């Protein structure tokens, strides 16, 4: 057990979780107090002692499933299918049918179930929310569709994709909804419709998880835990690269932005209250001196007036950095209550002010959508031209920049070999309080190809690499 545990801890650390020595010892101690045959209890015990942030749960979950996977009993896929069929044969009529079909065809050496049978039974299992049967069918589906090849060094996403494509979950959802409607006598109220959809979605999600688990189990059996753990390792949410995030990761990042801004706001408010004290508050000092017989023992000070900086955000929203710019706009707007004035501009080769899209809008996502569709940012061909965009910015809005303004420039400075017009940034620097440049590219790529970030960098207060949430958070906390 200790060997497995040390291997597991090593894997967690490799995945980026900060597991300290004492925590590992705690985990070992905790394992003594739980029944080892209870896999779920083991999981919670390890999580409670070693995972100290909810954002790390997914990484832990993946590693756990790999390291403490249930080994499938059979050696080959067909045998496995039949064995499972036998095991759960007592699960009612449908199960008997399933295992019967499995055995019959398995004996003949062919496929366990035909595609139509499988789809039909899956449909019925989903409709009646029969978890045991769903798990059995997931195994069948993986056997049939995933086409797993032993020894291939992949993480399983490919197999999952193949299985899902064949199962056609969207089609299943439609059929399920159809069935629900018929049961209700033809028509569902909008509310019922919505609830039914959500219910079936969650069942389909469960099916997807079953499939994932099954594929992972087989991969572990094939290649061993350590090899697989390496290939299924994913970056932690705060380290996901903005530029290369998958769709699910993007959604997760968007959800993470909100608590992040709350944290920042709290930190800002605190800094103000506990920072440098203002001038002596005479009235309060005298009032408090009464408790010490009129001797002003404890002088009171006024709180300093908060300095509310103005912020101008100038963001490149061309294809190459679009997702990054969206995030930053998200963030800037979420903390805009902290600043007296936030104005935002977006550009590709033309530039447009988009502050108005945020005014009086509660929903940032909607504002972003309007920016993407309505803002006038294309001048010639829709390829980034920093030089032109900056010149226009200077001509139209340069006057409004004051010594209280901080200018944030967001982009990768890949200028398609246009003129840089770096003098604009120099002028900005003269007039504004600070000029910062956030670059979503890895530092190693700066200045390669058509990247001219170096030309602008000499005029900026600082140029910051900003590729993930952690770096973004760090920058904003230093800014304020």
């Amino acid at each position, binding site marked *: 057990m200790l060997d497995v545990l040390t291997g597991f801890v090593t894997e967690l650390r490799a995945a980026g979780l900060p597991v300290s020595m004492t925590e590992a010892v705690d985990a070992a101690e905790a394992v003594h107090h739980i029944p080892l045959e209870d896999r779920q*209890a083991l999981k919670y015990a390890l999580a409670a002692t070693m995972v100290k*942030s*909810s954002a790390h749960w997914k990484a832990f979950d993946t590693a756990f499933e790999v390291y403490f996977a249930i080994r499938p009993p059979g050696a080959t896929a067909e045998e496995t299918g039949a064995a499972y069929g036998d095991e759960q044969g007592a699960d009612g009529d449908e199960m008997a049918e399933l295992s019967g079909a499995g055995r019959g065809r398995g004996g003949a050496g062919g496929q366990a179930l035909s595609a139509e049978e499988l789809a039909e039974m899956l449909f019925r299992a989903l409709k009646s929310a029969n978890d045991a049967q769903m798990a059995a069918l997931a195994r069948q589906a993986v056997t049939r569709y995933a086409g797993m090849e032993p020894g291939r060094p992949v993480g399983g996403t490919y197999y999952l994709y193949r299985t899902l494509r064949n199962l056609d979950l969207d089609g299943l959802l439609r059929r399920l909804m159809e069935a629900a409607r018929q049961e209700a006598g033809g028509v569902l109220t909008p509310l019922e419709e919505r609830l039914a959809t959500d219910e079936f979605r969650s069942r389909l999600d469960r099916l997807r998880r079953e499939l994932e688990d099954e594929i992972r189990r087989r991969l572990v059996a094939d290649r061993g835990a350590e090899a697989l753990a390496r290939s299924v390792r994913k970056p932690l949410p705060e380290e996901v690269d903005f530029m290369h995030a998958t769709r699910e990761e993007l959604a997760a990042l968007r959800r993470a932005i909100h608590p992040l801004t*709350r944290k920042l706001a709290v930190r800002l408010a605190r800094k103000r*209250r506990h920072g440098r004290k203002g001038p002596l508050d005479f009235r309060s000092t005298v009032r408090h001196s009464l408790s010490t017989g009129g001797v002003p023992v404890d002088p009171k000070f006024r709180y300093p007036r908060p300095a509310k900086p103005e912020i101008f955000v100038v963001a490149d929203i061309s294809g190459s950095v679009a997702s990054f710019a969206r995030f930053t706009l998200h963030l800037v707007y979420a903390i805009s209550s902290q600043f007296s004035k936030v104005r935002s501009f977006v550009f590709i080769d033309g530039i447009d002010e988009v502050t108005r899209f945020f005014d009086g809008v509660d929903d940032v996502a909607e504002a972003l959508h309007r920016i993407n569709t309505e803002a006038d940012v294309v001048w010639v061909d829709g390829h980034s031209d920093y030089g032109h965009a900056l010149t226009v910015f200077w001509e139209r809005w340069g006057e409004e920049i004051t010594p209280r303004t901080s200018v944030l420039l967001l982009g990768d400075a890949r200028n398609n070999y246009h003129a840089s017009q770096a003098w604009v940034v120099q002028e900005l620097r003269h007039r504004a309080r600070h000029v910062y440049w956030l670059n979503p590219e890895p530092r190693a790529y700066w200045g390669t190809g058509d990247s001219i970030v170096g030309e602008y960098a000499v005029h900026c207060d600082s140029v910051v690499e900003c590729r993930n949430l952690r770096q973004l958070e760090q920058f904003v906390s230093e800014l304020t």
Partner: protein
Amino acid sequence: MTGGEGDTTTGALGFPEPGPPRFASVAEVREKLDASGYLADDGIAGVVHLADRLAKPVLVEGPAGTGKTELAKAVSRITDSRLIRLQCYEGLDESKALYEWNYRKQLLRIQAQQLVDEPELDVPATTGRPRTWKALEEDIFSEPFLLTRPLLEAIRCTDPVVLLIDEVDRVELETEALLLEVLSDYQVSIPELGTVRAERIPMVFLTSNNTRELSEALKRRCLYLHLDYPSLERERAIVRTRVPGISDELADQVARIVRSLRTLELKKYPSVSETLDWARTLVVLGVQSIDAEQAKATLHVLLKYRSDLERAAKELSVAESSGSSAL
């Protein structure tokens, strides 16, 4: 002051010996919590069980209104312990959290010394008239002059105790350090008195709303429990046990609608306590089964932002168009 723990605080592996276990198994924790009206899942029960066995504090984190504080209360109920609560806030310091010298009483003592010839003080420490400064100092820095605050009280208490340190993320990073000695060694050092050890290791729960990252040092000393919004089945069960007179059908509908709402992008998701409020509202209104109109009319119990309300109302009826297009 050193309690009976002196010889047993370090076990074979350097862990504090937890004393007689409060629970026999995870299943027992779960049953007892269920019986007390707190529906736990395996994770919650498992962590409570471990906290008891390992004598470690539990750091409970999660969105507001998912039953973090309630868990500590439930555990104190099922273990027949006293609940000592330390509500954290900005500016909390050791005189509010640990202990304080009762300086008024100390002053009085000194003045009494000067004035009264034959003092009849209820201070048992001396023969009644300490003449030297040293004797006086020992006298006024003794237990009768000590005001215990929640942390010290939990440590000194001889009865079983559950200590709840609520919203620990509200104190400053520096103040967090105050907690460390109590949480890892269950002792408090008072310079004038010496070290106070726990007579009996209390169960400790810390809750956090995650408004800031807690320090590594604090996290390391705790077991971590993340309380998220409950699953559909659990929420339904919670509604059924906590709302008297609700029908199974209504409870099911309530839980399902709340789940749907949580899939939307809202400013603030409905919490479990708000779900319960909503269910109670519906019961009071005599609703048997919810339709869209009733849902919309009472949504303000669940959602507290205007934009959230509008969005939810829209989403609950938008399904119509997407549904009919699927037809």
